[in-house]
């Protein structure tokens, strides 16, 4: 029998701030976290895009070497947000280590910083340096490094899911974690994703002509989701995590219920691995509504994937129009921080949770002139005070993976 699943904790490290107060302040003030790309002495001279959604503030990690020794930068992010949520949760150490709490968390490809150092060694032609490659480098760079560093730090013995599906990494992590709890496989799941500062990702998207290059001198003017002068995505970094719990046990222990996850869908386009696919995306949005058992008109707000690529935004707008029409407010939250890759789904969910709680919806930044092909939607053009009962968070990835998450304000559930 399906159980109801609620979100009882969250934490995010983002280019617009770390933690609730910082992030809400940035959303209210329309503050962008896009900065000039830092020189990495390797690739940056060849990259056309010179902007990056950057976490440029210091973070007090306080991890002892016992834990640091298997962590690359991406695992630092992951473990920090995991610690925030577990410390605030009030969950007992007996429960955390009982096997009934699992982790669904990943990144796009482990730690590229560590991987780059390994490749440097390969090409160094130095035998002594070659011998320095060891098990620790693998533990820091493997694709499930974030998930297992979290389990190691907190003694979590439940299931591990490390869904590494590019831009849907963390939205899938949440959806799969939701299904774990919904169908009784676990009683709670820590779900999310992280990605670290990485210029190789910029180079990849740059070569695919998908990166923004026209605003290198004015980084905060890009990305521009749905705007007629958008010219591509901006790669970013960050991390986010949510704690999912079964409703009854969350209520019994008096946890603060931020929202209920009421629906999730994920499918694949079954074809091209790069181009957005209207049929695939439209089907995902409908499947999530079917899973939740709600009508499209009940959704008040959509956090669009909206990377600000030329075709991606148009296809997404068409899909939203086909399913939802012009009823819900639509915001492209990547306009604040760029595309945080494996972290984008969970970060956008957390921003949505914050806005739900605060009773406002932040506008899409840099949306000066709506592309007429996207104009059929109800774009959030100004900070809007409104009560959001149900919100959709949608994400799409290279490889043709699509996800849609539906959440309901926890105000009535508490």
């Amino acid at each position, binding site marked *: 029998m399906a159980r109801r699943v609620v979100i009882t904790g969250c934490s995010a490290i983002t280019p617009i701030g770390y933690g609730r107060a910082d992030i809400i302040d940035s959303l209210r003030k329309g503050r962008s976290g896009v900065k000039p790309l830092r020189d990495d002495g390797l690739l940056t001279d060849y990259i056309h895009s010179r902007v990056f959604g950057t976490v440029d503030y210091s973070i007090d990690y306080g991890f002892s070497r016992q834990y640091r020794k298997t962590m690359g930068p991406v695992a630092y992010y992951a473990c920090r947000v995991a610690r925030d949520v577990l410390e605030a949760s009030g969950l007992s150490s007996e429960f955390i280590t009982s096997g009934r709490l699992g982790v669904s968390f990943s990144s796009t490809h482990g730690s590229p910083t560590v991987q780059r150092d390994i490749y440097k060694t390969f090409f160094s032609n130095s035998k*002594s340096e070659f011998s320095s490659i*060891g098990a620790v480098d693998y533990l820091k760079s493997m694709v499930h490094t974030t998930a297992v560093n979290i389990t190691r730090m907190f003694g979590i013995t439940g299931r591990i899911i490390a869904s590494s599906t590019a831009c849907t990494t963390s939205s899938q992590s949440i959806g799969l974690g939701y299904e774990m709890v919904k169908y009784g496989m676990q009683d709670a799941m820590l779900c999310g994703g992280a990605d670290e500062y990485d210029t190789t990702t910029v180079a990849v998207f740059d070569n695919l002509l998908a990166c923004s290059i026209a605003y290198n001198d004015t980084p905060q003017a890009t990305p521009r989701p749905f705007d007629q002068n958008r010219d591509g995505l901006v790669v970013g970094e960050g991390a986010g995590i949510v704690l999912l719990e079964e409703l009854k046990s969350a209520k019994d222990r008096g946890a603060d219920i931020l929202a209920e996850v009421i629906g999730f869908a994920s499918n694949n386009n079954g074809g091209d691995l790069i181009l957005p696919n209207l049929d695939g995306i439209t089907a995902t949005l409908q499947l999530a509504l079917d899973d939740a058992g709600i009508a499209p008109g009940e959704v008040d707000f959509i956090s669009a994937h909206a990377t600000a690529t030329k075709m991606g935004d148009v296809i997404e707008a068409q899909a939203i129009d086909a399913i939802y029409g012009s009823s819900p407010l639509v915001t492209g939250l990547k306009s604040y921080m760029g595309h945080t890759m494996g972290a984008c789904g969970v970060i956008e969910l957390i921003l949505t949770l914050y806005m739900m709680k605060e009773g406002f919806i932040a506008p899409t930044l840099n949306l000066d002139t709506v592309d007429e092909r996207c104009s059929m939607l109800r774009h959030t053009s100004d900070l809007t005070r409104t009560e959001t009962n149900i919100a959709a968070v949608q994400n799409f990835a290279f490889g043709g993976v699509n996800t849609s998450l539906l959440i309901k304000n926890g105000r009535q559930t508490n």
Partner: protein
Amino acid sequence: MTRDELQEKILTILEKDFEFDHPGLDENLRDEHGFDSIDAIELLAKIEKIIGFSIAREEKEKAMSIGTLNDILDYIEALISARKS
């Protein structure tokens, strides 16, 4: 290299790199400081740099049973002695 010089180098590694708090010569590093198989592998790479030659696979496997600082010094001295003979 004398045993005292070797001890100073290994102590520096354990205190600076591994962040162990003043490990004693006969203190069990696993129980008292959380020394594990990952540390053993990292330590072997550092020992190779100190002694200036590669450690063979079968010799490395013996390092997995290291328990104390004295064990580490005995292990390194045995490696050096085996190369000389």
